[in-house]
């Protein structure tokens, strides 16, 4: 992968997916959920992967967390190929990378108190030897995730907590093993709008204060913009990363026609903005099935910029084009690459 943004330089990344592909066998045939995706993250980086359902963002997240082995390609952590490591080194990776799930109603054991949920990994990984140490550590973790007064929460069961509080417990559980990387898959989608921002701030705080690398996977571009402000966003479509850029550049001046269409389509919580948005008309409303992906660029059947003989034949790869103020951004679009201009400009919605 080429160098992108200012934060990550090849060779200094903490965790990296190198050209990973993942296929699944289904009764209807083999589908390629993720196709040749590369993603490198530095220490303490907060990044977002956005895309619609079926784009492969969750599969990418699970591969990044080492929970799913790539069909091809490598997962690198601190320079080592994770799927080639064994024993204590693999165990260290497992502790270093934690996943926070989408559904806090399903991810916590309903018959365990908060203390039981949080102390179990402490004992298991020998972080605490005695009950007293564990209790002090659990209280500290609860305070860090904003569940105060912490002693009140120790004896609570999940059903006694709100969705937001449960998600905080899930984050605290991820923190029990002092992770270096947290992959949060739609971690705020199921909590009320009124408290999403505070959860995002909690995750951001982990990146800023404790140098934890946080990857947030979301379908919500507004959430991504807030979370990855000052950082990067990767946009996925049908298994591929189609654009990777700094957040402001991506949101204000998207380079890929798909990102451009998404940003133009998104309803906004502001009547003046949302009712006067300039639209991007797609050639087809429905995304193709993963079982019958189109040849060439997977977006070409819907793309307003598609050129016959080019986009329906050749598969585009992520390549840098100049961004504003010399910033680099990468886009997998033949037309944007040839014109050396972002799709937002080519489609007149800049």
């Amino acid at each position: 992968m080429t160098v992108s943004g200012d934060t990550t330089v090849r060779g200094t990344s903490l965790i990296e997916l190198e050209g990973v592909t993942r296929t699944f066998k289904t009764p209807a045939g083999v589908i390629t959920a993720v196709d040749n995706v590369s993603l490198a993250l530095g220490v303490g980086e907060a990044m977002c992967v956005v895309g619609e359902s079926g784009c492969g963002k969750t599969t990418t997240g699970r591969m990044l967390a080492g929970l799913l082995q790539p069909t091809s390609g490598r997962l690198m952590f601190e320079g080592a190929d994770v799927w080639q490591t064994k024993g204590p080194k693999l165990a260290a990776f497992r502790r270093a990378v934690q996943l926070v799930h989408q559904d806090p109603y399903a991810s916590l054991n309903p018959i365990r108190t908060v203390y039981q949920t949080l102390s179990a990994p402490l004992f298991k990984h020998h972080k605490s030897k005695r009950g007293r140490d564990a209790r002090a550590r659990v209280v500290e973790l609860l305070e860090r995730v904003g569940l105060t007064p912490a002693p009140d929460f120790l004896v609570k069961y999940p059903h006694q907590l709100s969705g937001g509080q449960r998600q905080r417990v899930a984050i605290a559980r991820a923190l029990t093993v002092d992770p270096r990387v947290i992959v949060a898959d739609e971690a705020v989608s199921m909590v009320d709008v009124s408290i999403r921002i505070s959860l995002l701030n909690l995750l951001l705080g982990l990146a800023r204060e404790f140098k934890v690398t946080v990857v947030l996977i979301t379908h919500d571009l507004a959430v991504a913009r807030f979370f990855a402000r000052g950082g990067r966003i990767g946009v996925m479509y049908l298994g591929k990363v189609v654009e990777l850029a700094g957040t402001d550049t991506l949101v204000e001046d998207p380079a890929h026609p798909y990102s451009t269409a998404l940003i133009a389509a998104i309803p906004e919580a502001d009547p003046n903005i949302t009712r006067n948005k300039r639209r991007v008309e797609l050639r087809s409303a429905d995304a193709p099935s993963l079982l019958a992906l189109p040849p060439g660029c997977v977006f070409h059947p819907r793309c307003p910029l598609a050129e016959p003989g080019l986009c329906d034949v050749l598969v585009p790869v992520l390549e840098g084009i100049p961004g504003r103020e010399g910033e680099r951004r990468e886009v997998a679009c033949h037309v944007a690459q040839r014109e050396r201009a972002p799709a937002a400009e080519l489609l007149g919605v800049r």
Partner: protein
Amino acid sequence: MTVLSIQDLSIEYLSRRGPVHAVRKVSFELAKGETLAIIGESGSGKTTLAVSLIRLSPRSARITEGSIRFRGDTKDLDVLQLDDDELRRYRWNDCAMVFQAALNSFNPVISIWDQFLDTGRAHGMGDSRRVRDRASELLELVRLDPERVLRAYPHELSGGMRQRVLIAMSLLLSPDVVILDEPTTALDILTQRAIIDLLKELRDKLGFSMIFISHDLSIAAELADRMLTMYAGRVVERAKVDDMFYRPRHPYSVGLLRAVPRVSGTLGKVVSIPGSPPDLIRLPPGCAYAPRCPFVIDACREAEPPLIPVDTPEHDAACIRWQDVAETLRSDDEIPVAEKLA
């Protein structure tokens, strides 16, 4: 002209700990052709309120007071007094509802055509030919291929297609009012956009009134003429869409508006509302929002503030400090709340 008028409606759920005061003295009117958005967090009572409008509340719910009045071109109904037959005619013919979980709204083992036919027959469209013509016409309106879709089973359709089928089905008997519960939640962005544009087009073409329930302010910004903010079972603010977005007067509406980031324009100062909604069994004395409210004073905890007119006669808020809220937000210009407070 008013098609639906709700007066002092209160609904309780029975629970072991005592009655849950889910909806408390809610009043509003819906004009012909108007789109009203009801917004609030989960537990604010918005769904309880919506299902009560077609009297589909679960058995544990009890309407303790109030009235729902429907006025169509030829009829004037006291909805809470209808008998079973009258109720069946009122549902779908006068007032239809599209539920949130698109897949759960279908019978999974019968085809879409049979679902249309069942609905049509149950509500007085005896002739299957008539049902087919109307269904085909509506499916074309929602940009689906009737040939293909009518033969399909629910699981064979994508989420967006199912939502479009439900919208088409809700219009089968040309109701005057359509109620939509979270019509675009769980749909992809491009599908959301398609559904929003579709609802606008149908509304303009067919002239029905809409009530939609959402926690998503952006859908309200897109579609609503007027908005209600609900908190702890009460309407705490009632305003035209622009007044609600740019000149909110209840601190809870302000809090909701500041809690949602946007993709376009400046990001502003986005912050969550601290705390959580109150226990609806044991409500705090005075204003239910007081424990979370940055504007709270002692008087707020003494009596529940009534919904009073603010700024204009068409704008009401239930806050004794609405003038201070206005002062804090200062300018009347159309600047998002999150930016004014940044």
